[in-house]
């Protein structure tokens, strides 16, 4: 089975403090596949992303993460990245003094070291420029800029995606790449995701915007730490729009004549 999937997550549980954040998450992603994970804020999507990447404080209490058939559940972030797994954060980090061109070069260096840059004959600078162009940013304007507060949130987000693109990972986890991005730019993000897929990168697209779902090959719905539905993107999208309510229903006034249905 592992030949068919780049990522297999088996009954993954995560506890933080007294709270159970992930409750037996199971999912599979094939190479080059775009897997759309929908869910409201607080449903556990970002926690799943951090757990898959191996971030500090996100050690699962049970379950396994298999990457290309290898159990990576207890590997470090670096080890996972060197296998070809990476993450684009929802709110990307700011780096004082680190120029965009140097930041993008980090991912390129890894792709070369891991042999994923085969066939890429262009010099480093050209490949950095290509990554910027892939997220619709002008190299002339951005190469020498610093990845800090002088960039807007949207600009940093695009540069984060460019860094992922440059890295040529085997699986990219994109945590809400559409947040803080204007509606017109959603098409550009969708286009980038397709480009990643075409270059062989599988994408775990985490979003709460159902209009992003059509870019996915398969979609799933997450609710209260569980994946509650998996299927065709349009079907899951329709179900999400029709049935999903904010996770903490206790804070809501019940609708007249009934109550919110637990998905």
């Amino acid at each position: 089975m592992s030949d068919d999937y780049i990522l297999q997550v088996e009954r993954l549980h995560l506890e933080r403090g007294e709270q159970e954040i992930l409750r037996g998450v199971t999912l599979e992603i094939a190479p080059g596949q775009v897997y759309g994970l929908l869910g409201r804020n607080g449903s556990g999507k970002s926690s799943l992303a951090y757990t898959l990447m191996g971030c500090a404080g996100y050690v699962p209490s049970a379950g396994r993460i298999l990457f290309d058939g290898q159990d990576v559940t207890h590997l470090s972030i670096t080890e996972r990245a060197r296998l070809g797994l990476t993450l684009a954060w929802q709110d990307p980090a700011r780096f004082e003094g680190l120029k965009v061109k140097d930041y993008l070069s980090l991912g390129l260096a890894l792709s070369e070291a891991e042999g994923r840059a085969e066939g890429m004959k262009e010099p480093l600078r050209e490949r950095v420029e290509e990554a910027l162009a892939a997220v619709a940013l002008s190299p002339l304007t951005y190469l020498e800029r610093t990845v800090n507060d002088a960039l807007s949130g949207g600009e940093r987000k695009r540069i984060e995606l460019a860094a992922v693109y440059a890295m040529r990972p085997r699986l990219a986890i994109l945590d809400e790449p559409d947040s803080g991005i204007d509606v017109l730019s959603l098409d550009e993000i969708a286009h980038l995701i397709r480009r990643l897929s075409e270059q062989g990168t599988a994408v775990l697209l985490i979003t709460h915007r159902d209009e992003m779902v059509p870019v996915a090959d398969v979609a799933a719905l997450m609710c209260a730490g569980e994946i509650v539905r998996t299927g065709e993107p349009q079907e899951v999208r329709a179900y999400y729009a029709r049935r999903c309510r904010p996770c903490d229903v206790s804070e809501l006034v019940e609708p007249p004549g009934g109550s919110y249905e637990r998905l």
Partner: protein
Amino acid sequence: MSDFEAILKAYERSGGNPHFLKSPRVASLVVSGNRVLGANEVAGVHLSSEELPDGVRAKVVVEPGVRLDTPAHLCFGVIPKEGVQRILSEFEIGDGARAGFIAHCTFPNAEQVVHLMEAQIHVGRNASMKYNETHYHGEAGGVEVVPKAQVTVDEGGQFVTEFALTTGRVGKLDFDYVVDVAARGVAELTTKAYGYGDDAISVKETIRLNGEGARGLAKARIAVRDRATSQVVGATEGNAPFARGHVDCVEIVRDGAVANAVPVVKVTDPRAYVTHEAAIGTVDKKELETLMARGLDEETAVDVIIRGMLAG
């Protein structure tokens, strides 16, 4: 290898370009130990020097109104493993002049070297002086460096300086600059240092904004790891109407290192305005994990973050 060639090699290792020290079109001064190995004047810039038993006394005068297209290059070094070098320097930047200086202080083989610098700097009315000083102390940590400067900036003058000791060991650094700024004058002090092993860093930056509308920025970027220590005192006084000052200190601390920051703000005129910010902490978790998610190991990621902070 001649002494001059040896110091040029050390200069290059500290980040300098030896070409400038040989060019007749660039004002330059080369000092090794207590010997002046080279001095080149250009139009409007006068250099004089005197060898002392333990160092050199040097005076640099930039005539009023002179605009230096290419910065003057200064090289101070001690090549042997041991030695004391005392530099007594005086800079006079004439009214309306504009001059930049790039100084490299290099002690590549130091095991027990003391470098003392005492500078008197006068920036005339509407004149501008930029002074960038980069140090390289080798890898043994056997250097004690004590740079001290008294700076006076006249009306409308500008003094901008950056001191960087971010490659190799620090050893012991005791940095102390005091700047008095007259009306509409500007002073910007930036100190950057990266200490490890048992390095000890002490930085004191004082700006006294004495004239109406004077402005000042005292900035420090320090990183310490292992058992290194740092103490940063950034002090700014607002002593005149509409003076504006800011103290900005960021320190990254790792391992068993210890960092202190003491911003001192004093205002004696109610129309002056002086602010400060100081942050000490370890490397930001998200920055670290982002770089690791690009494949860097933790040690390299920390280094990239620290060097970025020091470059910023």
